[in-house]
């Protein structure tokens, strides 16, 4: 009977503790500094174009084939405003296939892609493919201050 009573005391005590639940959509836990959400495309503000040149390395290494990239000649290169000879034409990330594994970031030779905090990609639309504008927006959001978070106090 002693163990039983001990257990009862434990549950009684935790009855009065603060619940650890976080009511998710209303409030959410702080993300860790290096959290992997979905990858986003980094934007080169100096030349006003993404860093990505559409070399397809990430698409090749992607373990789930979630990335589809095409490349085109860079019009700004002809104008002389950009040093990039080629530029990304279309970059499609299939959000429903992406496993946030960071491989695309590691293999990128141009440092054009980064992991963002965006992980809530669900919505009431069947379109789960993120194009260049969405991916750039994800990266921009990331750069606005969220990057320099301290290590969160885990509970």
């Amino acid at each position, binding site marked *: 009977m002693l163990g*039983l009573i001990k*257990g*009862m005391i434990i549950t009684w005590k935790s*009855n009065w503790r603060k619940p650890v639940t976080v009511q998710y959509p209303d409030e959410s836990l702080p993300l860790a500094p290096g959290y992997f959400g979905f990858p986003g495309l980094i934007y080169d503000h100096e030349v006003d174009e993404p860093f990505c040149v559409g070399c397809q390395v990430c698409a090749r290494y992607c373990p789930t084939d979630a990335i589809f990239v095409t490349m085109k000649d860079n019009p700004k290169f002809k104008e002389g405003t950009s040093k990039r000879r080629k530029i990304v034409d279309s970059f499609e990330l299939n959000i429903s296939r992406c496993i946030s594994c960071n491989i695309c970031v590691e293999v990128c030779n141009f440092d054009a892609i980064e992991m963002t905090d965006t992980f809530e990609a669900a919505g009431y639309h069947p379109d789960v493919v993120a194009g260049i504008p969405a991916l750039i927006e994800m990266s921009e959001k990331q750069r606005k201050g969220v990057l320099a978070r301290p290590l969160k106090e885990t509970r």
Partner: protein
Amino acid sequence: MPAWIDAAIRVAIMLFFVFNIVMVLIYMERKVLAHIQQRLGPMRTGFHGILQSPADAIKLMVKEDLAPSSADKWVFRSAPYLVFVPIFMMFVAIPFSSSVVIRHLDMGLFYLVAFSSLSIVGMLMAGWGSDNKYALLGGVRAAAQLISYELPLGISILGVALLTQSLRLGDIASAQYPLPFIFAQPLGFVIFITASLAEMSRTPFDIPVAESELVGGPLVEYSGMRWAVFFLAEYANLVATSAIAVLIFLGGWSWPFYALEGVGWLMQILAVAWFFTKVFALIFVVFWLRGTLPRLRIDQLMTFAWKLLIPFSFVNLLLTAAAVIYGTAILALVWVATACLGYTVYAYARSR
């Protein structure tokens, strides 16, 4: 007013009361379990999820009522009636105060024991009629468990009947004004609580519905309103059994304050409030146990009933009878027997 109209009104009020208190209890159980587990429990429907139970009731009401095509239709469909009706009938004899009651039956205690065991048939039918192996196992387990615990339950109640020389629940409650029977009948109380936990199929005796192996036992094929009736019956049984325990062991509405026996409105309301404070405290303990304990196994459960509870309940009965005949001092021995029971459980678990 003719007697039958009076009875019908009282029964209708009681039905309304039972349905509502069941909703309160479901909400309470979810909240208690949640806080024991450091969760919040239902929070979305209304303030702190207070409308969760009505929402669930509506959901169950408009849910499709499925039955396996191979099930024995009549047995399957009539099982919920046979579970709920006997349990509700127990409320006929349960007084909430000296005059808030449907009827003060002169054989109240016996009546309760008789009706508490009837719902076994419903559980067995649910298990048998579903054409499902889990349900069958659950149904047979339910039958084995409920009949085994029926005995210690009945015998432990007898001690109280011996002391009061009456089976009227009102008399029994009033007889406990200076000292409730839990002090005179500690062994009876322990056995009664244990056995009624098993009768209600609640942790640690929730073996018939063991969701970790039988996935809900006899109820596995039920859905929608038909399933809700079982749920209703389970919680109604919880209220009824806790009320009985309060009535016969914890002093009903009288102890420890002034014997709230007067006929005035205020007195009656106070008595009912005090009575339900005790009932809810007891129900809280049941939920607390559910939050703490694992489940026993069917063979251990049967062994526990037949080798420990039944012999000890006879010890309690004979000691109490001897006390009635030869003097109250013998009741001290009941405390010794209680300690023996506790030590036996402890030693058994250690010896393994």
